């Protein structure tokens, strides 16, 4: 697909040749994730996370479909049906805990995947659409996760759905009709639960579709790499299979071990105790919080406390959605030709401040809206917007970057990447074969 020296698919048996001539599905797979996809040889472990996110999505879909066979999207029975799964369905507890914690791990690997893209400049030309499709996946994931959290119809489910749909109520004029339209009423109720179930079942397949576009768009320029230098010759690449399938296999093992530790030994650690209380519209929990993966955005939402031309709540909503929307413009906000943070010393410092900033935002988002945490979250919010909208654009004008290696293989030979394929095995196709 991507490079002229990409290995062409050769059917190994008569049947595969027969199939290849009629439905070249093996050819597609071979070119996408097989020996026919040349990948930079210097990828580090941060490049494992795309595959891990794909596997996390698969785990969610498989466990989710089975859970849906036992779940009842009816407000009087939803909570009971979840407990029925936990107590009476064979291995139901495993399915549900795996699904709930799998969602958390899906976000963990996706966030690391995004941070990797931020650090190594994977969003830059010619990969802008890869980046933007990834952000579309993130938004779809957020919608799916939020609606999934509502389905058990516990106290947090109910009140989180009220608070989150209430955000749309902050929009002037059309806000309230939109909120009522989303909920199917004036408050979360049976229509809300039923439509959230329907959409929660639908959206993962939409995500899977956008994942295909994401990978398709990726395969045109090929994978980025830690140096940020484009692939020049066959020496720079190794075939995806077996090199990166083997490495991803190891990464998958580590991922599954961590997922298993949480799922089997601390399955409720990432959840909230209040969601084991059935939804009660007459009793507001003292402290309404979303799931942990929304905490940074929740902190941004609550950081705007004072009206300024627009109501504070509207500022909070704009900022919260803006915090993700601005990432769509990142390729143009930071047009520095040097991609990788490894060669941008000043960028690197700000990047790590941003990482710390997001942790602080997450921390504040999980706490009650009390001082001094609101002030801390306001400072962190200021940095978040300043980083992407002010610091990065100025940096890309003024920064002095370090010299780039001439090629990926040169950087590997100089020991800049600890792990690299030996020249002999990697270079099955000699350098001169590029033309």
């Amino acid at each position, binding site marked *: 697909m991507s490079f002229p020296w990409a290995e062409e698919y050769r059917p190994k048996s008569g049947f595969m040749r027969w199939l290849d001539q009629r439905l070249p599905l093996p050819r597609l797979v071979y070119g996408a994730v097989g020996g026919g996809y040349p990948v930079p040889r210097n990828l580090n472990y941060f490049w494992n996370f795309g595959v891990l996110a794909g596997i996390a999505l698969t785990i969610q879909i498989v466990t989710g479909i089975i859970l849906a066979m036992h779940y009842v999207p009816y407000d009087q029975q939803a909570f*009971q049906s979840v*407990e029925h799964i936990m*107590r009476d369905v064979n291995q139901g*507890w*495993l399915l549900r*805990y795996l699904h709930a914690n799998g969602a958390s791990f899906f976000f963990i690997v996706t966030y690391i995947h995004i941070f990797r893209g931020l650090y190594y400049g994977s969003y830059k030309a010619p990969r802008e659409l890869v980046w933007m499709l990834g952000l579309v996946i993130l938004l779809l994931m957020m919608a799916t996760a939020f609606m999934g959290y509502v389905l058990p119809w516990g106290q947090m489910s109910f009140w989180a759905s009220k608070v989150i749909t209430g955000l749309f109520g902050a929009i002037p004029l059309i806000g309230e009709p939109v909120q009522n339209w989303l909920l199917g009423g004036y408050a979360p109720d049976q229509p809300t639960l039923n439509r959230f179930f329907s959409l929660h079942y639908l959206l993962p397949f939409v995500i899977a579709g956008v994942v295909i576009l994401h990978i398709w768009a990726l395969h045109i320029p090929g994978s980025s790499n830690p140096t940020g230098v484009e692939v020049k010759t066959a020496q720079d690449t190794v075939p995806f299979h*077996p*090199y990166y399938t*083997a*490495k991803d296999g*190891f990464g*998958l*093992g*580590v991922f*599954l*071990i961590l997922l*298993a*530790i949480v*799922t*089997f*030994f601390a399955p*409720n650690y990432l959840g909230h*105790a*209040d969601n*084991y*209380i059935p939804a009660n519209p007459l009793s507001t929990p*003292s402290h309404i919080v979303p799931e942990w993966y929304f905490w940074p955005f929740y902190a941004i939402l609550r950081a*705007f*406390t*004072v009206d*300024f031309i627009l109501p*504070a709540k509207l500022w909070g909503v704009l*900022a919260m959605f*803006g915090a993700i929307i*601005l990432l769509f*413009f990142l390729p*143009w*906000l930071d*047009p520095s030709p040097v991609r990788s943070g490894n060669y941008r010393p000043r960028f690197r410092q700000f990047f790590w401040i941003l990482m710390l900033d997001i942790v602080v935002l997450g921390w504040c988002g999980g706490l009650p809206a009390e*001082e*001094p945490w609101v*002030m801390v979250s*306001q*400072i962190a919010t*200021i940095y978040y*917007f*300043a980083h992407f*909208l*002010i610091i990065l*654009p*100025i940096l*890309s004008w003024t920064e002095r970057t370090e010299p780039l290696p001439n090629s990926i293989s040169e950087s590997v030979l100089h020991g800049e990447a600890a*792990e690299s394929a*030996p020249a*002999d*095995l990697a270079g099955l196709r*000699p*350098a*001169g*074969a590029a033309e």
Partner: protein
Amino acid sequence: MVRLLGILIGLGFVLVAAWSLAWGVAAYVSEPHEETVEHRFHQEPRDIAFSFDGPFGKYDRPQLQRGFQVFKEVCASCHGLSFVAFRDLHDLGYGEEEVKAIADQWQIEVPAVDSKTGEASTRKALPADRFPSPYPNEVAARAANRNALPPDLSLITKARHGGAPYIASLLTGYRNPPADLPADSRPGEGLHYNPWFANLNIAMPPPLTADGQVSYADGTNPTREQMAKDVSAFLAWTAEPKLENRKAAGLATLAFLLFATILAYMAYQNIWHGGASRRVRQTGVLDPDNMAKRDEASREAGIAGNP
């Protein structure tokens, strides 16, 4: 262009957030910030060890049976256990006949329909029934409890921060209000001071009032502390009946995953840094010149080589 626009929008958000921050700081500095009463008097759950803690933890069957006895004789008069069925008591070590007898002799009957007249009636519980609620509905429950609603206990240890230690702390946590407790936080009519409860004043009267309130068949000394621990362990079981299956499955899964991951790591190392014997130098058969010669030779011999 995008950068200029971005800087402008960024400045906008930064300024508005800074405006909020300025007000926040001003309020924080000018207004006295007192500790809330809850903050001063509320207690974290005591550090109580249970047999089911940790990755190898298991339920202590005799303790669950004792806890069930406390539930039956003390809690069940006000609290339901609606997600648990009598048949589930097999897990506690009771036999078929014992479970049947427990269901049959349960103090509250199960709602039923009279098969002749069709009128609402009640019947004795069967092992397949879930524990019947002590009150027919929420209104009746509130009416009998000064408008407080005794929560269903099936999930209580998962529905409260602190789990089983919290329940045990709460059950033994009734105190006389301290002298320095502000007047508006003192327990009102029908409330009881308990620093383990979120807002310090709980409607539930002290359930475990004296040592020896229940008599344990297994000879354990029924101190208040012991009864509180036992019933908390029982309620941990009602909330998480599959805990032992979960931990056993977890250990097996981890053992498998560790093994598979070590194999995967070795496969990864093997493919990337394969044995020296398989190493082929650039000057060897894969040398561009050599390959060209080989291809030419293949072509001359009429053998299909690499295109």
